[in-house]
C-alpha cells in the first residue's frame, strides 16, 4: 500500500542513506536486506512485516557478490521499498509474494542506476588532467556522494509508489493462496543453501551437520 506523504519521505530518506552504505559511505552493512527491511518496517509502523520481508530478501540476496565492476542488484533501497509498501498490507500472503518478487526486480533496476552513476562519475567526478588543487578533488568526490544519496532516495521513492499501487490493485483481485507460504519457504531455503557455493562445496559435511542441527531445533519446537 502507498504510505502517507510523511512516511514516504522518511522511507525515501532511509533508502537514500542505506544506498550510500552499499558502496559510497562506510559499508558497515546496514544496507543488508534484513536490516534495511526491518528498519523500513519500523518507520512504516509494521516491524513484524518488515522482518518477514527482510528474512526472505536476505536469504535470496545471500549469494550476491559485489566484486569489482561486476553487475549485481542493489538490495538496500529495494528492501526499504518492499517492506515499506508491504507494511500496510495486513499480513496478506499474496502481498508478501508480490513484495518479494518486486524487490528482486527493483533491486536489479537499482543496480542499473548504480552503473549509470558510475558512468556519470567517470565524466563528472574525475579531476582534469594536470596539477590540481586538493579542494577540487574533495568537491568532486563529495558531490558524487550527494548524487548517490539522491539516486538511492529516488529509487526508493519510485519503488514505494509502484509497489504500493500494485499491492492496492492486488487487494481487489481474488487470489487463492494455499501454496504461497510453502513456496516462499522453499525459495528461501534453496537460496540459503546456494551460499554453500561461496564457502566451497568441500564444506558439504559441515552444511549437512548444520542442517541436522536445524532439523533437531524444528523437531523440538
Amino acid at each position: 500500500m502507498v504510505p502517507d506523504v510523511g512516511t514516504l519521505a522518511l522511507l525515501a530518506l532511509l533508502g537514500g542513506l542505506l544506498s550510500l552504505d552499499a558502496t559510497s559511505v562506510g559499508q558497515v552493512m546496514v544496507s543488508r536486506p534484513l536490516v534495511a527491511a526491518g528498519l523500513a518496517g519500523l518507520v512504516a509502523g509494521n516491524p513484524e512485516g518488515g522482518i518477514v520481508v527482510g528474512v526472505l530478501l536476505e536469504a535470496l540476496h545471500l549469494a550476491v557478490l559485489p566484486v569489482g565492476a561486476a553487475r549485481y542488484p542493489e538490495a538496500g533501497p529495494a528492501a526499504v521499498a518492499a517492506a515499506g509498501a508491504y507494511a500496510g498490507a495486513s499480513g496478506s500472503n499474496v502481498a508478501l509474494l508480490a513484495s518479494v518478487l518486486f524487490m528482486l526486480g527493483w533491486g536489479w533496476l537499482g543496480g542499473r542506476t548504480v552503473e549509470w552513476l558510475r558512468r556519470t562519475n567517470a565524466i563528472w567526478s574525475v579531476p582534469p588532467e594536470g596539477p590540481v588543487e586538493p579542494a577540487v578533488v574533495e568537491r568532486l568526490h563529495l558531490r558524487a556522494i550527494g548524487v548517490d544519496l539522491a539516486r538511492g532516495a529516488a529509487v526508493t521513492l519510485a519503488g514505494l509508489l509502484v509497489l504500493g499501487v500494485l499491492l492496492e490493485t492486488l487487494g481487489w483481485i481474488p487470489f487463492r493462496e494455499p501454496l504461497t507460504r510453502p513456496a516462499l519457504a522453499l525459495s528461501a531455503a534453496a537460496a540459503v543453501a546456494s551460499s554453500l557455493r561461496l564457502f566451497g562445496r568441500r564444506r558439504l559435511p559441515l552444511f549437512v551437520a548444520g542442517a541436522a542441527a536445524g532439523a533437531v531445533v524444528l523437531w523440538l519446537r
Partner: protein
Amino acid sequence: VSPFPAAVRRAMLLRTFVVQGSWNYRTLIGTGLAFVLAPALRHLYRDDPPALRAAVARHAELFNAHPYLAGVAAGAVARLEADGTPPETIARFKNAVRGSLGSLGDRVVWLMWRPACAVLMLSLVLVGAPWWAAVAAFLLVYNALHLWMRVRGLEMGLAEGLGVARAIREAPFEPLAERAGNAGAFLAGFAGVLALGWGGEAYRGLLLVVGPLALAAGILLGPRIRWVAVLALLGVMVAGLVAGNP
C-alpha cells in the same frame, strides 16, 4: 615514529570510509584515493603549492583496492611521499599492490566473512531471537573485522611504506577466512532447514519431501537459484490469480 601528526592520521582514517564515494569506470577509486591522501599531502607540501597540486594529480589516477584495504595503500603511499620516494617508484608500488589488495579483500570479506555473518543473523532470527538482537550481533561481529582492517591497515601502511606487502602477508587473513567459511557452511545448513520450517505446520509433509530437494538444488545451482526461485514464485502468483478467478 609517524611522519604525520595525529590529526592528519585521523582525517585520513575517517576519509577511508568514503574512499569509494566517486567510484567510476575510468579511474575506479582514483579520485577517492586522492581524497584520502589530501590531508597528508597538504601537510607534506604545505610550503610548496605547485608540488602539492602535482602530487594530488598523480594520486587521482587509476587505482583500485578492496574498500577496507584501501587504507593500506593510502598509508603506504603517504609514507613514501614523506620519505621523498621518486614518483615513478610510488606509481610502480601502486600498480603492484592494486590487484592483491583487491583480491585479498574480495576473498576474505565478500566471499567468506560477510556471507558467514549474514547467515548468522538469519539463523538468529529464524531460531526466534528478536530482530534487533540478531541485527546487533551481525553488525558487531561483522564490523569488528571491518574496523580492524581499516584502522590497522592504515597504521600498517604508514609504518611500513614499501614493506607493507610483507606485513599484509603476515596478517592472519587466511586462517580467518578458513574459519569463517567453516562457520558459514554450518550455519547455511542450519538456516536452510529452519527456513523450511517457516512454510507452515499444515505443509509439514510437503516440505519434508520437497525441502531436501530445494536444498540440493540450491547447492547445485549456486547463485543461479535466484532465477529459478523468481520463476517458481511467479508461477505460484499466476496460479493463485487464475485459481482465484475461475
